[in-house]
């Protein structure tokens, strides 16, 4: 290792030799770096889960354009729309198709008697084009009144049993005072606001929620015709529908707005963002502490080198060398612990907490950058002082 580094650097790998000379101190430094990594990765993971649950909530349907009530911030918090909006949207020449999307929460009693909050997605059975891939095939079968597809990822549910639900082995249960028969299943999982999902036809939805019987959709899904520009159609629809209390956005924009709203306006999101900021600050403090202690410990040795005529960039090279070594070796245990904690929290909450390559690499390069910056900052004392002052 020393030989390799010496060949690579064209000089003695003093950073490496220094670190490995004192094993105890190196392990402490590595533990500090690893801990900083775990802290930041876990907080980012929880924040990422919020991102993931938003993506999940939008997964059961597909569309180019999404029309919502003007007071809607998330999927479930807006007022119902008038069906008139649907017909008006359809009259646009570049609108290929449109369908109502019905959404509401319902309580479902799990196998163990506990209550789960389920989001019910209601779609017309003929609107297969608007259904997410995992319910598209089964959607026509939901034409049978009071049938549903159930989310086998529902938090704390018996997912084994739910995954066996099929037309041949249906599952009957009661919600909102009606008996519903599940004839299939899909895998979505819970979010911060619900434990799982149900997919039903629009007719079944309206029977489950009599207050919506007048046929007021939660949102309207619109597909534009081939070759039409979604954003242009959005602008035109917004104008066409202007007297109605609606907002017209592409589905992508709606999803992004929803996430932004959850991150900035909802307590959970704000707290998660704050925790990430705290974790980054604490991580930086730890890394700075590690590197500045290291520089201070070797100050008189560096002063000797300075007296011998080594330039300042030589010391920056040593600090950088140590940063890369600590960042590299400290990252791996940090990553392993973080992934373990992800699995633990995911198992506990059913939230989609997963390590992404982008997150791992950015935390990794952030660590090395923070190490290098801290070391450079700690070495500034060395730059200013006469060697004779440092012995």
């Amino acid at each position, binding site marked *: 290792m020393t030989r390799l580094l*010496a060949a690579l650097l064209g000089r003695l790998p003093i950073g490496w030799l220094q670190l490995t*000379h004192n094993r105890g101190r190196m392990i402490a430094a590595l533990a500090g770096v690893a801990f900083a990594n775990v802290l930041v990765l876990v907080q980012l993971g929880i924040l990422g889960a919020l991102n993931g649950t938003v993506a999940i909530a939008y997964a059961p349907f597909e569309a180019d354009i999404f029309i919502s009530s003007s007071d809607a911030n998330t999927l479930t918090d807006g007022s119902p729309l008038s069906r008139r909006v649907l017909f008006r949207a359809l009259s646009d020449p570049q609108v290929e198709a449109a369908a109502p999307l019905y959404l509401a929460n319902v309580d479902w009693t799990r196998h163990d008697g506990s209550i789960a909050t389920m989001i019910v997605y209601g779609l017309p059975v003929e609107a297969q084009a608007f259904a997410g891939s995992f319910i598209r095939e089964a959607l026509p079968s939901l034409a049978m009144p009071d049938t549903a597809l159930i989310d086998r990822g529902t938090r704390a549910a018996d997912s084994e049993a739910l995954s066996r639900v099929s037309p041949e082995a249906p599952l009957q249960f009661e919600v909102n005072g009606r008996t519903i028969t599940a004839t299939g299943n899909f895998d979505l999982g819970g979010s911060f606001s619900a434990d799982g999902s149900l997919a039903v036809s629009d007719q079944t939805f309206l029977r489950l929620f009599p207050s919506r019987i007048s046929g007021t959709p939660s949102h309207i899904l619109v597909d534009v015709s081939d070759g039409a520009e979604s954003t242009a159609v959005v602008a035109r629809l917004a104008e066409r529908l202007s007297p109605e209390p609606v907002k017209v956005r592409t589905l992508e924009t709606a999803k992004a707005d929803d996430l932004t709203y959850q991150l900035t306006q909802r307590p959970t999101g704000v707290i998660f963002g704050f925790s990430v900021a705290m974790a980054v600050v604490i991580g930086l403090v730890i890394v700075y502490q590690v590197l500045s202690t290291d520089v201070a410990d070797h100050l008189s040795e560096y002063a000797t*080198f300075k007296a*011998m*005529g080594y330039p300042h960039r030589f010391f920056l090279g040593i600090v950088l060398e140590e940063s890369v070594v600590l960042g590299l070796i400290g990252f791996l245990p940090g990553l392993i612990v973080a992934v373990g904690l992800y699995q633990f929290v995911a198992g506990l909450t059913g939230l989609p907490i997963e390590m992404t390559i982008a997150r791992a690499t950015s935390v990794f390069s952030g660590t090395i950058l923070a190490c290098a910056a801290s070391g450079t900052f700690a070495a500034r004392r060395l730059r200013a002082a006469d060697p*004779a002052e440092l012995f």
Partner: protein
Amino acid sequence: MSPIVVECLNHWFGAGEVRKQAIYDVSLEVDRGSLTILMGPSGSGKTTLLTLMGCLREVQDGSVRLFGAELKGAGIQTLEAMRRRLGFIFQAHNLHESLTARQNVLAGLQVHGRGDPARHNVAVEHMLRLVGLGDRIDYLPGNLSGGQKQRVAIARALVSNPEVVFADEPTAALDHDSGMAVVRMLKTLGQERGTTTVMVTHDNRILDLADRIMTLEDGRIVGDQRKTP
């Protein structure tokens, strides 16, 4: 031409109320290839003068010329280039604890650039053998005695054939015998290589070896004896 010329050098420590002068109007020239010994009571300014001449401390007032170049007001690059032409042996050995004897000495060569590793290695081993550490080449400083460490420091200072060597009480940490051995070694190596050596010492027994003995008191030169060969 004298490698070291000092003219009207004054130096102060501290600022404001606690400002205290440590060097008063010192002028001297050192002959090439000579061994000059600086003596004087503790606190008389020997280390201060040595570090001023050795580019380790900024010159405040007066003039220090090393190899003809003025140090007062010199830029960091000039100072670094000058430092590379010197060998400095400190009172404490100041070896790098994580580097072996070989690596410590090698650091004295690598300061001049990459160079050929094989040639470096030969030079390092030769130097360590010269100071009598041929059998301790790959020892860490922690496993060497005080005298051995000081000899590694000497090897490090001399390995790149510096034109001038400054030594600040190189024998202070050593017992009498190894102290004498270290000084004799410096003297012979200096003679062989034509090195100019300036050494601070309290040890009277070393004086016989000197070409010139200067005495410092309260920051002033109060004695200057040359030995006529």
